[in-house]
Each structure stands twice: as C-alpha cells, then as structure tokens.
C-alpha cells in the first residue's frame, strides 16, 4: 500500500490541498506542474481517494483516460501519480480551521494537532448529501432512513446490507446506482420515486440501473409519510400536484424496511464560509475566476466544493486548473486577470467559472433549469451553437477559444440556452 505519509509534518508548505478525493489529488498534481515544491494533501479518511473507493461500478475515466474504469481504479491511478510526484499525504486528518493568513489547523488521528502555514490553498472538500430534514418528510423517525451514499459505503466498503426491502426517494445518480447494487445483493428494490417530472440522474444510469433490472421509476411522485417506530415498516407514496405537495387521495403504501435518500448533493463549504469567501447562491460553492481562484487571493477551489459535477473526469480537469493556479500564485508567474464576467441568462442556472480572460482558452460549465430538445446555446454575441438536447441532470460545457473573443471589447457575456426558432 502506498501511503505517502511524510516523515514529519512541515510547518510550512507551498501549497496545502484540503481534501484528498479526485479533486484534491488533481489539484496536487496541478500545483506540482506549475512549480510548487512542497505540497501537502490532507484527507480525513484512512486512504485518499474520497468517494471513489465506494464507487465500485464502472463508467469513470472515459474522458480523461479514454477508457472505462471503476472508481477505485480511477483513484489508484491518481494516487500513484500524486505520490510519485512527491506530494506529502496526511490521511485520517481534518482541517478544522483556516485563518486569513492561510494557516491551517490540522487535527490528525495519529500525530496530534498541528498548525500548517500554506503559501496557497486549494479547497477540494467535495460535497455532502442532502438529508431527510432538508425536505421535511412527515412521519416517524425510525432507523432505516439513510442517504444513498451511506448505504453505498455500507455495502461496498464494509460488506453489510442497509436492509432487505428498500424504497429509493430521489433519482440522483447515487440512488440509481444503489438501486442496481442492492438488487444484485438480493435486496428487493420497490422503486425509485422522483418528485420532479424528470429524472435527476444521467440517462445512462436510468437505462443501465433501472430499466435493465425492471426497477420502476415513478416521476412526479414522492414519499408522503414514513411509518415504523423502531425501524422503517412502510412508506406512503403519493403523486404530487403542481406545487409539489402530495395528493393524498391518490397515495399508496409500500412495505419496506429501508428508505434511501438520493435527493441531491451540497458543496461542503464550512471552511469557505470561515474564510468569508463570496458564495454563489445557486451552486452553494465559492465564486471563482478562470484560474479557479476564489474571492480571497491565494485560495483556490475545484471539484464538487465549487459546484456539483456529474462526472469525475470533469472534477479532475477543473481541479487541475485550481492546483496550477495555486502553484503559480507562489512563483509570481500569474497570468493577467480575467476581463470578462460570465453571466447566466435564459434557462441557465449558473456558470463556472464566473469570469474569463479574453486571451486564454476556457471551458465554461453550466446547468440548465429546464429540459429542452433541439436547442441552441448562445454566448453573448460571440458564439452560437446547436445542441441536440439539454437536461438539468447533465452538465453542459462550452469551450471558448481566444480567437472568438478577439473582437469583443465588453466586460460581460451572457449565456442563454434557448429553443431553436
């Protein structure tokens, strides 16, 4: 096992990376590429790699490695690359606090509490799952209600089952993956219930995880009540009206001992708030420029901590930029600042990064609010491109080449995604 555990924890690093999941590992590599000499990655789990270890299904790496890998394979490749690059890795460790001077309070399981000073910081804390409280499901509070990600960890990492008969609320990707996984493990999956009129996961997961296993997907339907004193005994499900309130006259009960929640992810931004970073109210993550630098100089961010991604490949790609930015911050080899703000327009919920520079190439990531077929994406007056479809569950990316911006002299460009006339 490669551990990369440093012989001693230095008091100062060129770049400190908070989080050792796919975002943090890519950021560390980016920092190395751009010249940082001492790099520390801090991860709270026993092994770096983040959520990838529990994602034992395939489908990772198609963009980045041009082959289909499992989560652990993807993690292992990055981990080896990172450790070969001489990055110090501190696992079982938790960054409790970062102050204005980029001093990190690191609490470790084996080496006590340390204060580490960083020339630049890359935030890569990832995301957490939304829980029951966030959506107010009426009923009792028995055991057997858990997030899909926790269930995935229990099954794939520890070899136990979360129950014998499950209902899944929410059609996020983790929920879809778990519908298949639990079915393979002999758990009876009674259906996936989605309050929205459209699914929330990738289409390939709907097909491969539900259709292929005859697991029903109920759209515009939600769990209206949880029953059972000690353990879940059944749930009441009901279609919803236009205000997303359950229509109880059309409700029915399903006997089950488990309710998995796959109702979305929230960027994990406690440290960002401590640092008083500007937060985008839509993404829940920090506002970033095209080098993934946040509103605080020397603090960079990448991956799910900035906005929720569908594919790990894009997490790696974005975080590599964040790491490069952090490395370059120290050497002073910083490119000129951004000169164009990117503004979400019609049917665009948000755009990342929030600004770009006209002399460099960029990829702008965004999410739509509503599905559309045969549509187009318009980037101010500089670019218009046809899209065959858009879907809130699938991130849209737009590549922008510097040539396009040569003749643009404004300071803001709006992105619209519109039906074709």
């Amino acid at each position, binding site marked *: 096992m490669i551990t990369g555990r440093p012989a001693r924890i230095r008091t100062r690093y060129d770049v400190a990376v908070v989080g050792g999941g796919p975002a943090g590992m890519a950021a560390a590599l980016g920092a190395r590429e751009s010249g940082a000499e001492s790099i520390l990655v801090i991860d*709270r789990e026993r092994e770096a790699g983040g959520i990838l270890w529990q994602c034992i299904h395939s489908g990772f790496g198609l963009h980045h490695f041009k082959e289909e890998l499992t989560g652990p394979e993807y993690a292992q490749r990055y981990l080896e690359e990172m450790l070969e690059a001489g990055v110090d890795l501190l696992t*079982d460790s*938790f960054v*409790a606090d970062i102050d204005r001077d980029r001093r990190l*309070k690191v*609490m*470790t*399981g*084996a*080496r*006590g*509490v*340390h*204060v580490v000073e960083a020339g630049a910081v890359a935030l890569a804390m990832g995301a*957490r*799952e939304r*829980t*029951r*409280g*966030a959506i*107010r499901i*009426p*009923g*009792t*509070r*028995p*055991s*057997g209600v*858990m*997030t899909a*990600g*926790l269930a995935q*960890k*229990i099954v794939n990492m*520890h*070899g*136990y*089952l*979360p*129950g*014998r008969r499950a209902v899944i609320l929410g059609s996020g990707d983790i929920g879809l993956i778990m519908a298949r996984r639990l079915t393979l*493990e*002999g758990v009876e999956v009674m259906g996936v219930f989605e309050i929205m009129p459209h699914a929330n996961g990738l289409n390939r997961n709907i097909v491969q995880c539900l259709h292929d296993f005859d697991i029903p997907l109920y759209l515009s339907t939600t769990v*209206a*009540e949880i029953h059972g*004193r*000690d*353990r879940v005994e059944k749930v009441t499900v009901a279609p919803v009206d236009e205000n997303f*309130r*359950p229509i109880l006259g059309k409700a029915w009960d399903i006997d089950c001992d488990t309710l998995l929640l796959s109702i979305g992810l929230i960027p994990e931004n*406690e440290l960002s708030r401590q640092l008083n970073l500007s937060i985008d109210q839509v993404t829940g993550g920090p506002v970033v420029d095209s080098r993934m630098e946040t509103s605080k100089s020397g603090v960079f961010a990448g991956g799910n901590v900035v906005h929720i991604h569908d594919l790990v490949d894009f997490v790696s790609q974005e975080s590599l930029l964040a790491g490069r930015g952090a490395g370059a911050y120290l050497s002073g080899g910083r490119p000129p600042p951004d000169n164009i703000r990117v503004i979400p327009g019609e049917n665009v919920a948000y755009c990342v990064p929030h600004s770009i520079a006209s002399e460099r190439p960029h990829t702008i990531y965004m999410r739509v609010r509503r599905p559309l077929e045969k549509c187009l994406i318009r980037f101010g007056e500089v670019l218009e491109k046809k899209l065959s479809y858009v879907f809130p569950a699938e991130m849209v990316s737009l590549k922008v080449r510097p040539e396009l911006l040569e003749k643009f002299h404004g300071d803001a460009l709006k992105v619209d995604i519109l039906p074709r006339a």
Partner: protein
Amino acid sequence: MTRETPRDVIIVGGGVIGCAIARELSRYRLDVLLIEKECEVGFGTSKSNSGIIHAGHHASTDTLKGRLEWDGNQAWDQIADELGFGFQRVGELMVAFDDSQLGTLEKIKAQGEGKGVPDLEIWEPERIRKEEPSLSTDIIAALHAPTAGVVNPYEACFGLIDNARENGVAIVVETTVESVAADDDGAIVLGTSRGRHAARFVINAAGVHADRIAALAGVGSFRITPRKGEEYLLDKRLKGLVKRIIFPCPTPTSKGILVIPTFDGTIMVGPTAHETEDRSDLTTTMAGGDEVFASVKRVVPGVSERDCIAEFAGLRAAAKGEDFIIGPTDLKGFVNVAGIQSPGLTAAPAIARMVTDILHDEGLGLVPDDGFVPTVTHPIRVASLPLEEQIGLAGHDPRFGHVVCRCEHITEGEVIDSIQRGAQTLDGIKFRTRAGMGRCQGGFCSWRCMELIAQEKGVPLTSVTKRGGGSWIICEREDGGGR
C-alpha cells in the same frame, strides 16, 4: 434479579423528573434504583422538550406548577455548574399584536411580580426593534423576562443521571414495569420485562405512561392524555436571528408556538399542541409543519421552511386539570409524580426536593451521605478548547485529535468517553456528544460511531442500534459476507 432485601426507593421513569429525583436522593444514604423503558435516560418526552427554563411568571400560584416553576428556575444555575452542561439565561419576550393581548401581558407581569420574579418589563415597539430587529413590525408590545434560559434537556438528564450514578444510584434501561404489588412485609414489588425489583418506596415518574403505572398499583385515579408537540430545527446559518425566546400570547392549553435560540446557537421553532390517543405517536406531519411555519412567520418574517435541517415530535404528559399530580397514594409507599407538562423541566429541581420531603414524611429516613460528590467529571469538548490545549490533549491521547464528526468537530476520544458514560446507541452518542447532530445528520460519522460502539462493548456491528429495541441499522448479506 430478586434481591433478599428490598431497596429503599425505586424510581419508575428516567426522564428529567426521574433523573432529578435520583440525583436528589443520591445525597442520602439510600439504596435507589431507576428503571427506564427506553435504551437511554431522557429518551422519552424529555429529549423532545423545547429546552426552556421558564422565567417563572407563566403559571398562577393557584396551581402546583405555578408554585414550583419559580423555585425550580432559581436552582438551574447551580445544577448546570455542578453537572457541567450548558445553561444560559437568554431571557424571553412575550409579544402582543393587538390591544386585547396587552391585558394578558399585564396580567402575566403582575402574576410574576407576585411570585418575586424580578425585572419584568413591558417593552414599547421602539425598544423591541432595537433589541430584536428580526421581529415583525406588527408587534405592538412585549413582556420581557430576563430570568428565562435555555438548556439542552437531554444534557440535563445525562448530567443528573451521571452524577446520581457516581453517587451510587443503580440504573436499568430497556425495562418496562408490568405489575405492581405490595408484599407481606410492606415492600412494593415491581414485575418488569427483566425480572422483579422490590423497594419500600416507589416513585411513579413514568411520564405519558404514569396513569398506567398508577393503575397497575391500583391507585389510578387520573388519566394522561398525551399532547403532541412538533419542533423544527433550523440551519446554523440563522444563528443570532433572535437573541431571546419569543413567545406569542398564551392560550389556556399551550404556551403557543415559539422561536427558541437553543443553547447550541441554532434556532428551533415549535411546538404544536395536539392531543393524541397513541402514546407512541412521535410522527411529524405536513399540517404540523405548516402550522409551525405559518405561526412563526407572523412573529419572525425571516424564517422559512427551507431553513429546516431536522424535525421531531414529543408528547407532553398532560393530565386533566392541567396541573402536576404529586403526592402519596392509597398504596403505602407509592408516590405519584404525574401530569408533568410545561413547566416541568423548569420545575424539575423543585419537584425533586418536594418528592424527597414527601418520602421523608412517609417514613423514609434521610441520612446525608458524607461521600456525596455534587459534581461530575465534565466531558471534554475538544472543539471548545483553545488551540494550545488541543495540541496538548491530542499529543497526550491522539484519539482527541481524530475528528469523527466533521460537522460538529467531535473527536473519537469524546465518542469513546460518551460510550463509557453509558451511551449504548447511535442516538445515545449523538445526544451526549452532538456527533451526528449537524448538517449532514450522521451521513459521514455514523459508521465510525457504530464501529466504536462495537469495539467498546465487544458486540457485532449488526447488533448496534439507533436507539435500542428493533432500531437495527445494518444486516448481514445473504451469504454472511460482512467483515
């Protein structure tokens, strides 16, 4: 489990009342046992209590609860100090929206002054705006009572019982009383789900089940009608929205729906008040949530359903007549402490003293125990220590550097300590340490907490529960493939 000699006292029910009585009795040389139905003390009504130490002026001195309320209030500073849990006198504001409610404020103010509750003041709108800028501008006056405070009710239960235990009180959990009978020697014998226990005195502090226990003893002259209250906990971001507990003007059966700055700094809104026949009905409802938020928005317009991170419900043990029922019964040695609804938490220390006096009057000899230690070893709270102390502590014992709960920054050392103090379940750890109580609601830490319970207790992971009984969390794979 039958012993040769009966104990001096058995307390039935480990809510805050039972725990306070246990601790009070542990001052004396007595053989005391507390029997609790749930897996941990405080896990019935007390856990879901709003956590308010009422200012002392709410109830009339014509009632027992009105007399015990102010006495109890004054005892909390010392108890919190000795037992190491948080208590803060944040004060309360009772708000009036129209002239008809002004009379109620005046009446309650006079009632409090009659009891000696100090510094009651009626505030004009200008003062309200200045002190509590989030409150609705429709409020025309408010009664300020600085003596009101907040605690975490479960922490109070744990502090009381830990101290009682250290001073010799025995405790059994997950045990229900099934029969009550007097034996020939004048002792009372309790048949329970886990064997027989006998004592010369039995205190019935069984909360919503107190009428049933009294009926088993043949002295069931009252009936408890549980009144359910739903509470909604809001995200930490709203910390500071209100500084004081905000009350609407009360109705005859309820203090209304409140906005409570909890001791931890989160805002809690609730409770509803609806009678239920089902004594295990801890459901939250769509209607209850709607009622709470509609009512709260009228008082604090900035509150929204979207800020909710958790919800729960509890049952008030209300008796007909709405007063406490405390006293000896026709069964010699059997003492009822029933109908304890609001302000039961506030009054708990006074109730414990009153019960001790009753036992004395009934013939129990009270010899002070010279070895009584009024304090407990305070649990370590790593997150609240200064950096130097954290470095020192974690250097000495690395478990206090290992963060298990990332939302509340709770370390492995604290979780293990809570298990050693008696936490048996995930909820037991959660309510003792706050691990699992934050934003992610246990998504990240519950597995580690389960491992620690299994490790400390030497039990398989599959036998770890959320809160005892049938609340199992994981099961074996069909092929038994678990590690």
